[in-house]
């Protein structure tokens, strides 16, 4: 048995929300991938929209370089509102 290409499935659970990764499946083409995704990942009304992307087309960050990649954000605590002191008597800030 030969494998069909692998597809990553993204589902929008309701209007107004972003598509979220649900899982993967094999299918000969994009059309069949959407049809299969309907049966595999939305048997209980989990979705209103499906995206499929060939897994081979996803370029991912390297887990080994996680530290270097995300460190710059970690050291910038002043980007969060909780970094700042607000006097108790001041409202709407």
């Amino acid at each position, binding site marked *: 048995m030969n494998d069909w290409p692998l597809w990553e499935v993204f589902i929008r659970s309701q209007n107004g929300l972003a598509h979220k990764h649900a899982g993967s499946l094999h299918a*000969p083409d994009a059309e069949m991938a959407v049809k299969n995704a309907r049966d595999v990942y939305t048997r209980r009304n989990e979705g209103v929209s499906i995206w499929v992307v060939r897994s081979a087309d996803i370029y991912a960050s390297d887990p080994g370089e996680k530290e270097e990649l995300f460190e710059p954000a970690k050291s910038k605590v002043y980007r969060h509102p909780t970094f700042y002191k607000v006097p108790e008597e001041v409202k709407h800030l």
Partner: protein
Amino acid sequence: MYTQMVEAVGEQNGETAQERHFQARIDAGQTIEAKDWMPEGYRKTLIRQISQHAHSEIVGQLPEANWITRAPTLRRKAILLAKVQDEAGHGLYLYGAAETLGVSRSQLVDDLLAGKAKYSSIFNYPTLTWADMGTIGWLVDGAAIMNQIPLCRCSYGPYARAMIRICKEESFHQRQGFEIMTILSQGTSEQRAMAQDALDRWWWPSLMMFGPPDAESPHTAQSKRWKIKLLTNDELRQRFVDQTAPQADYLRLKIPDPALRWNASAGHYDFGPIDWAEFYNVIKGNGPCNRDRMRARRTANDDGAWVRAAATEYAQKRKAERAA
């Protein structure tokens, strides 16, 4: 449904710095993802555990499929169809999780069809009456849930996420089974007898689903350390008995174990010895339906070959049309 009896591959001594770092991540409750470094033993044990689980879902469709055309009402037929379709879906989620570890789908399917891969021993028993549909949902899916809920917290991300989806869907499986048992046990004397007979036949094989006793499962410690097994076989089995015995009382059915009784000082039910010779015999391929199940899988694969070939051909044709 479920997996059993996977032994960890690899050794604990002589750890490298990389292995110690990996273990520290697990001890800290971090989730391991597909592209992270992992010891070969962890990868191999997971491939075996997840693929056995996937095969169990796929083969697990067969005992129940046996009753789809003979379900007593349209409501029951629709429920059973949905349940069997769920099992196919669960198999697919799990094959997908196994593939993230670098094994191909075709390899996994070929191993099953060649008889090289194991699946849960429970599916090698026949479904003789309608009450078996109730008992499978109540006991077999009940045992599966007992095993799977802790796995939602296992260390390997893709497996844990598949487990969460499966557990959400599995709950209906157990309830529809218990509903069948409730109706039969409140029915005519023949229906009560049918329910009791099914319980008599499925009780011990259900307890065997949790795998051999801890004393005979030497690699449990490694799997626990890696958090791909969170409770031991005996711990899960005890929980299952404690949960199920009062449910049988409610149904006024008798669990076929003369030694079964509440032990107030232990806070658990005591139960009698399990016939492990039967278990090992079924695992080796000599259960009542092993050959039948494999034949059904191979026939399904052969009969579907033209559909797969046509789909591949059609995809090629469409691609060529678009290119033109």
